[in-house]
């Protein structure tokens, strides 16, 4: 306190000598605290100023801005940073006049104040690196601020604007003015308590470096409504709040938290090991203790995890300023709206998404949102909207950045991608809108016609994608032409400890992060050989009627080589080859139970076939060494409860490696999404099957509801048609061979009812105008995407035309007409089949 009294901010040499009075490390600490605190304040300032520009009348924000600048000024005076003091001083004066309502905030003033913030930031950076403000000339800025301050005003009536402002600041009640003015005018006395708290090594947040009584005085001064001293409750509230926050928060070094996190990670491993031991031991006290250890560890883990959680608003708060500056640069008007600022995620992740986020926002403002005239021309609000949204979903954080701009020009993206050699023109032609839009995530892609200083240097969205994928997230772009673009990032909550499913393949454990897990399917030996089919060699499983592409983990990891070798050796099951030995037991094809882990990768589903499904476990992710980094199917390694090392599978990498996400996708996701499977640049997805006499036929996939196998025994007759009970409804069945024949006369053997009850009928359940019916075909062949150029006209009713699909002549069925004929279809005349026999 006594040291503070001696400070005179105007004398640099004296100021320095004061700093020397304090032990050097203390002085460093004070400066460090000052920097940390000021950076925080500056970020708030950016946000507040932009808010204020929108809403110039808001006294609360104005007061907060004033306070921030004032605090920096005061502290800089105390620490003898004169240049900093001079600049903030004029800024404070200007703000004082704004606060008193003598000036109204406009764009010009905001820009000048933001420039002030930038200047302060630069000086702080310089102080941080070199210890001084650096050589700089702020005369222009100072005179600009001074000019603004006196604009539209009788100049010269104040030589000490700050003091004057303070006097004015206390509206009607002049009684409050004098103590306040004194305290404001003498920053040195005020800064003194700052020293106290800094020396205590903890700085309260928010950090008002003022005597304890002061905040309430301020509140009074800033709030004309509470001018009287009688409004006691109201006076004390802000002060109490600031105090409370100050007492209950401390600043911590992040590395300390990281260290804690690592230790908790180790503890979780040790806990897992102890639990495993305890579970096999008879000792009941050990069991009880281990249970308690389990509980405590879980809570501790949650607690430590929470300390690292930060609301996403922390990084969003910087964006309004960025957007404002950018919008002015590009001559655009942009409004930023946010939802879900309080959504929390791990600090390291927050750091990791900062740059990508800024990049996307810049892109949106620079390329997405149109110039005001253009917007007006198409009947939009001249002010564009940038909408940020964050929310938790399924253990992940979703972050959406959308704008209401022009959307992406698909055609241009296609051309650009072809021009850059990212895709061939043939590939581009085949691409769906969704795929096209996501081309912009490929490396080396940029469609900006002119390079701006903001964005468009050819590195762009691919960097965003790489960054997000590195932390286990995904990026997806959606675009509606003329309506805007939506970028969605999905980010895991935390990286360190994740719940995972442990599976075994070839005797070794693998961990699958639970986030990508959808469900588990177990098939008995008999079932598996029947239910797993192949489409052109690719195994698929019908999961509730939908085709789920299967990936055998052993195949993906090329472990089956060893096993095939085993199988060929005459001594089945007692193979000597070490790696395959444990797997060999499960080799016997008939009795083998098939375990399918249904996974989602990048929005697509696939089934991973593993030998055994063990358990779920909390695992600590350990990074792999560089020797193994290139193997995309692993996300890391972990140590399990029994001390064994398990590899963590990277579901996305696994899917990519198994072509689930590229050419294989037709068999997966596209099949389920009827809408998208429709026409697409003259191309359609078609289901190929063999019909009458082995002829190849096709129906559009969008009409297909499901693929079913119906046992012959389940076919019944109702009136004049064949039907089957299907999902609680009666599904009419039409046999393709009959529906298309010229003369629809049945031979008794053709009657579906005459089939052996165990025979399986392959049925395409088709839907046309809400009406479902089953088309009994000989064999389902494939699903292809093809242009349907008619090569020859139809030769029979029920067929639209013939075309060449996959190099074979294929008839395209006319489903509506087939349905009509099917309905009119005469029943088997004779009570043939079963009744007769």
């Amino acid at each position, binding site marked *: 306190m006594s040291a503070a009294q001696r400070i005179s901010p105007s004398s640099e040499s004296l100021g320095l000598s004061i700093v020397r009075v304090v032990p050097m490390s203390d002085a460093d600490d004070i400066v460090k605290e000052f920097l940390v605190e000021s950076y925080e304040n500056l970020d708030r300032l950016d946000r507040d100023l932009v808010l204020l520009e929108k809403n110039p009348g808001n006294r609360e924000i104005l007061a907060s801005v004033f306070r921030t600048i004032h605090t920096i000024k005061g502290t800089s005076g105390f620490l003898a940073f004169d240049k900093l003091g001079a600049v903030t001083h004029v800024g404070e004066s200007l703000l004082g006049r704004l606060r008193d309502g003598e000036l109204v905030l406009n764009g010009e003033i905001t820009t000048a104040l933001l420039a002030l913030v930038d200047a302060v930031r630069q000086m702080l950076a310089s102080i941080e690196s070199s210890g001084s403000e650096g050589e700089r000339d702020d005369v222009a800025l100072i005179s600009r601020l001074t000019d603004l301050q006196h604009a539209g005003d009788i100049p010269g009536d104040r030589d000490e604007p700050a003091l004057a402002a303070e006097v004015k600041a206390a509206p009607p009640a002049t009684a409050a003015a004098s103590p306040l003015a004194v305290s404001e005018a003498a920053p040195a006395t005020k800064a003194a308590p700052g020293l106290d708290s800094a020396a205590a090594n903890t700085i309260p947040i928010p950090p008002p470096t003022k005597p304890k009584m002061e905040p309430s005085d301020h509140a009074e001064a800033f709030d004309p409504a509470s001018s009287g001293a009688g409004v006691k409750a109201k006076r004390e509230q802000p002060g109490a709040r600031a105090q409370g926050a100050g007492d209950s928060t401390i600043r911590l070094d992040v590395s300390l938290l990281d260290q804690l996190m690592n230790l908790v990670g180790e503890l979780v491993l040790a806990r897992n090991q102890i639990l495993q031991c305890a579970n096999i031991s008879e000792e009941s006290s050990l069991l009880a203790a281990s249970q308690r250890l389990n509980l405590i560890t879980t809570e501790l883990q949650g607690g430590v995890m929470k300390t690292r959680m930060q609301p996403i608003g922390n990084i969003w708060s910087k964006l309004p300023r960025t957007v404002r500056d950018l919008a002015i640069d590009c001559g655009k008007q942009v409004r930023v709206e946010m939802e879900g600022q309080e959504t929390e995620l791990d600090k390291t992740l927050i750091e990791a998404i900062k740059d990508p986020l800024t990049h996307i926002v810049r892109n949106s403002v620079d390329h997405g949102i149109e110039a005001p005239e253009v917007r007006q021309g198409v009947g939009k609000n001249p002010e564009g909207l940038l909408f940020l949204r964050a929310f938790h979903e399924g253990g992940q954080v979703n972050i959406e950045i959308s704008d209401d701009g022009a959307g992406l020009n698909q055609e241009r993206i296609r051309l650009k991608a072809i021009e850059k050699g990212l895709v061939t023109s043939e590939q581009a032609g085949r691409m769906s809108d969704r795929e096209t839009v996501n081309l912009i995530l490929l490396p080396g892609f940029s469609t900006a016609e002119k390079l701006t200083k903001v964005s468009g240097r050819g590195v762009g969205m691919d960097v965003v994608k790489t960054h997000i994928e590195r932390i286990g997230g995904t990026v997806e772009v959606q675009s509606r032409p003329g309506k805007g673009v939506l970028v969605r990032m999905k980010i895991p909550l935390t990286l360190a400890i994740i719940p995972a499913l442990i599976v075994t393949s070839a005797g*070794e454990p693998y961990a699958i992060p639970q986030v990508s897990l959808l469900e588990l399917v177990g098939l008995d030996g008999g079932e598996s050989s029947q239910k797993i089919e192949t489409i052109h060699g690719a195994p698929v499983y019908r999961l509730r009627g939908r085709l789920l592409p299967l990936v055998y983990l052993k195949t993906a*990891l090329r*472990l089956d080589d060893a096993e095939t070798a085993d199988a060929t050796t005459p001594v089945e099951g007692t193979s000597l080859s070490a790696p395959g030995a444990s797997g060999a037991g499960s080799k016997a094809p008939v009795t083998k139970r098939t375990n399918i882990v249904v996974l989602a990768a990048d929005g697509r589903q696939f089934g991973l076939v593993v030998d055994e499904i063990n358990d779920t476990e909390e695992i600590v992710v350990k990074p792999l*060494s560089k020797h193994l980094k290139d193997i995309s199917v692993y996300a890391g390694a972990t140590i399990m409860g029994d001390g064994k090392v398990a590899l963590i599978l990277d579901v996305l990498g696994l899917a990519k490696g198994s072509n689930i996400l590229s050419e294989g996708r037709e068999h997966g996701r596209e099949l389920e999404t009827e809408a998208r499977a429709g026409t697409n640049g003259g191309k359609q997805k078609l289901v190929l099957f063999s019909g009458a006499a082995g002829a190849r036929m096709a129906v559009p996939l969008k009409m297909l509801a499901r693929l079913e196998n119906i046992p012959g025994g389940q076919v019944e007759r109702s009136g004049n048609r064949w039907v089957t009970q299907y999902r609680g409804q009666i599904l009419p069945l039409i046999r393709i061979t009959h529906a298309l024949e010229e003369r629809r006369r049945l031979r008794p053997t053709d009657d579906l009812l005459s089939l052996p009850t165990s025979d399986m009928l392959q049925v395409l359940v088709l839907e046309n105008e809400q009406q479902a019916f089953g088309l009994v075909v000989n064999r389902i062949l494939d699903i292809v995407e093809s242009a349907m150029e008619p090569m020859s006209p139809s030769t029979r009713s029920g067929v639209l035309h013939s075309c060449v699909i996959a190099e074979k002549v294929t008839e395209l069925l006319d489903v509506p007409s087939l349905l009509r004929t099917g309905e009119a279809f005469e029943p088997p005349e004779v009570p043939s089949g079963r009744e007769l026999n």
Partner: protein
Amino acid sequence: MASAGQFCTFYLNHLLFGVESQKIQEVVTHRELRPVPLAPTVVSGLMNLRGQVVVALELRRQPEMPDRARAMKPICLVVRTEEGTVCLLADEVGNVVEVKEETFEPSPETLPPRLRAVIRGVHKLEHQLMHVLDTERACEVSS
């Protein structure tokens, strides 16, 4: 490059190799390795070293020596490299020797290139030659 000092020696296919002692964190007996499918052949697997996951590299595979006989359990030299801790598998551990600069000679041109790539030179010991292993190079993965 200082080639004098204390070296920890080990045998690899009857050849004597040496690594600077200060680079060696510890030498542990063979323990269970977790094989890593799809990994480069040099990678023998992953090891649980007191809660740390450490990659184990087969030194015999680097200079293309014949594989170790199955019955022969390797020893693990845990070395610190720029990329973190790595475990190198060797046949047998030898003595710690003190060598002087004078006995050092760069590796002869005639050495097999794969062996030459991972050693910095040889020390002429009294009865034997000691190959000075370049741990950084030995930890590189050639596909």
